[in-house]
């Protein structure tokens, strides 16, 4: 009898805290509809991984290593970057680059809105995180889960659990984070700027060649990103070629759903209390917020900068859509535009900037890896 209940004595307060955190993630997913596909598996996994002597994670019992399924999945799917890459095929198949191809200038906002990544990297380094961890923390600002996982895993960061929780939580919180920041750094007059949308025909050839050419360009300029951008663009090519509709549908639905289920619960293997219940975790979550805020500031200020030289004024709010949180950010900007002026439709411009952010965040991840690797 004592043997049966001995496990109860192994319960520690940190484990209970992780159960509460897991419960909060599940609550946010179900009640608040915040990234439920990721937060729910992560929340459940956090509870699963933090039960005393949990068989779901690798344990050393009487000197013998007993492998847990979450660690097996982590090694099989995340340590070798497989899951984030496969997920990118699904994401690529979901994205319509049409608004960007109609108005390619929006690419520049995608670039500008990566500022938060590099700003947060510098801030994390100032706070004493080593450069590998600082880079992994900064990449929360990519507002793109697979890229965050890819970079944090590449640098073998001990904080991967906290980084992923922060990345996905803030993506869901974009409608709360971005509007006050945008209002703070724009005037009412700027927010009222109208941008007429000229609907242009984008030829099928351009839609098909775009993913191929982009992969080649990014592969040459930022080779570290080529796997990420290649899988993203492969998914998009499946969508745009129009002859692989079944594969495109499978990538968007079955593949993306299956990987998402496994990704969420597998990340939980890095949410064990001994890795997660630390002051560092709180700091990382705060730094993630800084990254999103400065992404937004970067995009908006760049639009204001362009307005100094441009005859056709750009609504600076569109710059904020350059973060990669797709399609959340473009919807937020569209709604903000309508709130200021019910006749101001910014959706297509914002969607262009938003998909540009998807490409830019992947490039930023590759550039970050290449530059930080030289320093360490």
């Amino acid at each position: 009898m004592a043997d049966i209940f001995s496990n109860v004595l192994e319960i520690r307060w940190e484990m209970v805290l992780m159960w509460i955190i897991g419960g909060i993630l599940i609550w946010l997913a179900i009640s608040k509809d915040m990234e439920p596909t990721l937060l729910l598996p992560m929340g459940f996994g956090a509870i699963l991984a933090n039960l005393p002597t949990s068989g779901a994670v690798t344990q050393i019992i009487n000197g013998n290593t007993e492998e847990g399924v979450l660690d097996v999945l982590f090694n099989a799917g995340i340590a070798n970057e497989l899951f984030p890459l496969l997920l990118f095929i699904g994401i690529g198949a979901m994205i319509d680059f049409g608004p960007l191809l109609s108005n390619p200038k929006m690419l520049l906002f995608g670039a500008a809105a990566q500022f938060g990544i590099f700003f947060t990297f510098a801030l994390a380094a100032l706070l004493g995180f080593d450069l590998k961890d600082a880079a992994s923390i900064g990449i929360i600002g990519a507002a793109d889960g697979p890229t965050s996982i890819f970079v944090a895993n590449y640098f073998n960061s001990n904080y991967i659990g906290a980084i992923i929780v922060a990345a996905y939580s803030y993506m869901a919180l974009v409608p709360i984070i971005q509007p006050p920041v945008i209002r703070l750094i724009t005037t009412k007059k700027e927010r009222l700027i109208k941008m007429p949308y000229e609907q242009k025909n984008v030829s099928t050839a351009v839609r098909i060649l775009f993913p191929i050419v982009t992969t080649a360009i990014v592969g040459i300029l930022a080779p570290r990103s080529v796997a990420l951008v290649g899988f993203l663009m492969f998914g998009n090519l499946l969508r745009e070629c129009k002859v692989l509709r079944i594969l495109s549908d499978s990538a968007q639905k079955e593949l993306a759903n299956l990987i998402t289920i496994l990704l969420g619960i597998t990340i939980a293997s890095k949410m064990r209390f001994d890795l997660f219940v630390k002051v560092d975790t709180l700091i990382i979550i705060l730094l993630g917020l800084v990254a999103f805020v400065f992404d937004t500031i970067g995009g908006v200020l760049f639009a204001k900068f362009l307005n100094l030289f441009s005859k056709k004024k750009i609504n600076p709010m569109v710059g904020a859509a350059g973060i990669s949180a797709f399609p959340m950010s473009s919807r937020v900007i569209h709604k903000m535009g309508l709130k200021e002026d019910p006749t101001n439709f910014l959706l297509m411009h914002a969607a262009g900037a938003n998909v540009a952010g998807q490409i830019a965040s992947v490039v930023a991840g590759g550039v970050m890896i290449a530059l930080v690797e030289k320093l360490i």
Partner: protein
Amino acid sequence: MKIHIDIDNFLQTPQVVLFGMLGVFVALLVIYGSILILSRAFRKNGKKNSDVTKD
């Protein structure tokens, strides 16, 4: 890890910030240029074999 202000560590970052942002802008400018070239090259075919941008 104990959080502390690490100036030496911080001083390694400006080059990453500068070249990082520059790298992202250069890559996206090249993609921008390629879209312009593709759009011009396939404009005529576009009438025959095109679809209107959907939201």
